[in-house]
Structure formats: structure tokens, C-alpha cells
């Protein structure tokens, strides 16, 4: 028994050392973001004697951070919102309808998960350009198209454990499909909605390639703005690192509060 305890202690230490290793890139980023350009050159690892926060205010202004943060927020909230609403509705229609056609449509949605973005990227941009939809509305619509497959798949899976007798009872009480879905089914689906929401938020908030093809600089999201910003400051790491830190802070704050949900959501999404 004693040996077992000692083994656990060793593992505990190994784990903590690995955690430090995992965190070290963040340490390096933060510690160098409060140095002057000269100090980074003389010592890249240590904590500086004097902390400079000027980098942050400069980067904050140059990133136009509040503006790009709001842009990211708008795109993410609207896209994820409509993905949740419309995917849940579609999955409900597909799961409850046992016809051949319904099965085929579900199969198309699942099969669409195999299509990589780059293989439709060029025609997509060209088509949306033709109808002048290369803007925020167009982008949100694209996210619905790309995000709905996995979301429908996940909703479909959990709908099969929601008893059809619930629908039948409500129909007898005189409720129509719309009412049944919103009053009875959708509330039951809340756990899977959380999973769908988390997976899509992680993807859309961080996505770079699609917004870079669709949005102009005015409506740039954080990753997009970060790319422009970085191009401007390639040799000025003190500013670049402060900018990167600013971009990461909101994500870390959310993670800190919702980590249990996030890890569970990702786990459910991957294993199902």
C-alpha cells in the first residue's frame, strides 16, 4: 500500500511538470509582452525588472480591439444561434419522419461532413461574389451551411432517445408541430444544444480562412485582424506578443468559468 502511495506521488509530480511544460508558451508570451524591444533581445526567458504596459495600450489601439472583438462576437453569436435553431428543427423533422426521402436527406447531411472546406472554397467565393454577398450576412449563412451537418448528426442521435409518445400526447391535446417542437422537444434537447453550441463557438470564433476570403478590413474578426496586425509588426515582438495576449485573454476567461461544460461538450462531440 505504501508503494502505491509513493507511485501516485511520483505521477502527481510528473503531471505537474508536464503541466508547466504545457503552460510555458503562455508564460513566454506574457513575460515578453511586458518587456521593451531591447529587453527581449537581451533576455527572452526571465521576468523583466521593470514592467512596461505601454505595449498593451499600443497593441490594443492598433488592433482596434473593441471593434474587432464586437465583429467576432456578432459573427459567432448569430452563426451559432441559427445553427442551433435550424439544425435542431431539421434533425427533428428528419428523425420523426421515417420515409425513404427523409433517410436520404439525412445521409446527404452526414456525407457532407467528408467534404473539406478547400475543395469548395474557390467556387463558393466566386458564387457569393457574383451576388455581392461577400459580407457578414453571407458569412453567417455560410457558417450555417458548413456547421449544420455535424449539428444535425448530434441532434439526430439524441432525438432517438426522446419518446415519440410525447409528440402523440401533445397532438391529442391539440398542439401543432411548431408548438410541440418549441414547448416540448427543444427544452428536452438542452444538453445536446450546449454541446452543439460549444463545438461551433470554438470553431467559428477561431476560424481564419473563411472570414479572410469573405470579410473586408472594416468587419474583420479577431483572427483576421491579428493577421494584418502581425504583418505590420513582424520585427517588433514586444507589440506583437502584447497583441496576441490581448486576443487570448477573452478565451481564457470563458474557459475558466465553463471548462467542465467545454471539455464534456468536446468529448461528446468527438465520441458520438
Amino acid at each position, binding site marked *: 500500500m505504501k508503494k502505491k502511495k509513493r507511485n501516485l506521488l511520483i505521477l502527481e509530480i510528473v503531471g505537474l511538470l508536464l503541466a508547466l511544460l504545457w503552460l510555458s508558451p503562455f508564460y513566454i508570451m506574457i513575460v515578453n509582452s511586458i518587456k521593451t524591444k531591447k529587453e527581449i533581445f537581451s533576455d527572452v526567458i526571465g521576468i523583466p525588472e521593470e514592467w512596461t504596459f505601454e505595449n498593451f495600450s499600443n497593441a490594443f489601439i492598433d488592433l482596434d480591439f473593441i471593434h474587432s472583438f464586437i465583429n467576432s462576437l456578432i459573427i459567432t453569436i448569430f452563426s451559432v444561434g441559427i445553427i442551433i435553431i435550424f439544425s435542431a428543427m*431539421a434533425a427533428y423533422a428528419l428523425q420523426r419522419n421515417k420515409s425513404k426521402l427523409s433517410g436520404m436527406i439525412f445521409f446527404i447531411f452526414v456525407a457532407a461532413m467528408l467534404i473539406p472546406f478547400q475543395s469548395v472554397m474557390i467556387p463558393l467565393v466566386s458564387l457569393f461574389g457574383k451576388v455581392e454577398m461577400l459580407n457578414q450576412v453571407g458569412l453567417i449563412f455560410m457558417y450555417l451551411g458548413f456547421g449544420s451537418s455535424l449539428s444535425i448528426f448530434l441532434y439526430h442521435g439524441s432525438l432517438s432517445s426522446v419518446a415519440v409518445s410525447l409528440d402523440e400526447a401533445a397532438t391529442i391535446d391539440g398542439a401543432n408541430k411548431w408548438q410541440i417542437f418549441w414547448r416540448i422537444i427543444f427544452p428536452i434537447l438542452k444538453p445536446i444544444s450546449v454541446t452543439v453550441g460549444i463545438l461551433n463557438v470554438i470553431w467559428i470564433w477561431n476560424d481564419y480562412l473563411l472570414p479572410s476570403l469573405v470579410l473586408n478590413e472594416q468587419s474583420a474578426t479577431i483572427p483576421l485582424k491579428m493577421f494584418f496586425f502581425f504583418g505590420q509588426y513582424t520585427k517588433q515582438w514586444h507589440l506583437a506578443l502584447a497583441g496576441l495576449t490581448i486576443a487570448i485573454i477573452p478565451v481564457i476567461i470563458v474557459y475558466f468559468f465553463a471548462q467542465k461544460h467545454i471539455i464534456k461538450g468536446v468529448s461528446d462531440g468527438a465520441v458520438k
Partner: protein
Amino acid sequence: MKNKSLSFWLFLGPVLISLCVVVLVPLIYGFIFSFTDWTGLKGSNFIGLENYVDLFKDKEFLQSIWFTTKFAVVAIILLNVIGLGLALLVTRKLKSSNFLRTIFFMPNLIGGLILGFIWQFIFINVFDGVGKLLHMEWLSGWLSTTETGFWGLIILTVWQWAGYIMIIYIAYLEGVPQELIEAAEMDGANSFQRFRNVTFPLIRPAFTVCLFLTLSHSFKMYDQNLSLTAGGPFNSTQMVAMEIYKTAFNENLMAFAQSKAVIFFIIVAGIGLTQVYFNKKKEVDL
């Protein structure tokens, strides 16, 4: 009855339209114009299979496929070994178990573009600084050669993705019945034997999932590639996704890029279909 089918289509409408407009129509449209010489401007001619013949002579494209394949093989091995290792560690009864999961998973939440920039600083400046301090010359000049660019991408990917792979293994490890492990312990099996003969066969489906996830992730990687090495030096660390992007939007060879995209689609969809096949087989075995 009529009413029923109306509500069916109304519920389905929004996603069906968006899937068609955003994915299916571009896929078919792209397939068709990969047989033309379209360059993004008006007008194009049908040129048959010429693009497909040319792409097998395009050194940069072939090199990007080779580089991506090499990358995928190394990434799969390292990610699964390290991901499983981390999962085994944090499923022991450690006090810090939850804390460790949180930390290892953290890089997944941050965009590949931003992570690539951070690691660019680490490889170029921090490695160099440490190398000078410890007189290790091999730490200098990272990302300036193909070799260090390759390992740089691998280190970044492993650091970012191992936590995700860990989460998947954890889900399967927690499904292993505790009685079986205890029974094996009673029979005198040591911890390696217990893992080899009890746990390992039971979590085998996790290997399939993780294998294909890492494979398709490697093939689709773009952001990290762009921000860490931008394909340099001399396009030698350019992966397939980036090569297609460059052909289309930097060289304006839209139709030629689309023929590469079609090949890319066949590779990625092929990987996915193989996974589906293995999953089905597994279900039969159970």
C-alpha cells in the same frame, strides 16, 4: 397528410438551402470548371483533362502532398502516444487530475493562427536565446530550414492537439469496467499486463477514432502552416491546403487550383470513408 409534409419541409428548409448553396452547388460547379482554363475573369474554355495532367507535373503540388503525408504520419504517431499517455496519467486517482485535464486541453480553444504566431517567437527567439546560453548550436536558426520547419509544425500540432486526443481516450478509458481491472489484479497481473490485456483491447475503438481524426486534421491544416512558417523556406514546408490557396488567389489560376482541390477532396473523403468502413466493421465484431 399534406399538412404533415409541409411542416417537414418548413423545418428542414433553412439548413437544406444553406447546405445546397454553400456546399453541394460549389462542389458540383467546382468539379465542372476544373475542366476549363478559367482564371477568375470572364470567359473560359473547356480544356478537358489538361489541368489534371498538368498537376501531376506540378512539382510544388506534388511536394506539398509528400510533405503533408510525412507530417501526417509523424503527427499521428506522436499525438496518439502522447494523447494516450496523458489520458492514462489523468485517469489515475491524482489530486490534480481535473487541473491537469484543464491545462492539457487549453491550447485547443485558441485559434491555430494565434498559436502559430506564439510558437514562431518561441522557435526563432527563445530557442536561439537558450541555444546561445547553453552553447547548443542546433537550437539556432529554427524555421529557416525545411527540417526545423517540419519539426516546428509537429511540435506546435502535438502541443495543440494532444489534449484533444487525450479527451477522446479518457471517454473510452472511463468506459472500461472497474471490476475487470480488479479481477485481473486479483489474478496477479501487473499494471503493464493489465493495460496490455484488459484495457487495451477494450479501448481499441478509440484508436480508430483518433487515428482518422489526426489524419484528416493533418490534411486540412492551414492556419498553423500560414502563421508558423508561411510555407517557407522556398515553399518547402507548404502543405496541400496552402498550396491550393496560393494557386487560386496568388497566382489566379482558379481552374487549375480547383483541379487540385478535387484531388484533395478525393483524398480527404477517402480517408473519411475508410473510417466509416472500419467503424461499421467494429460494430459487427461487437
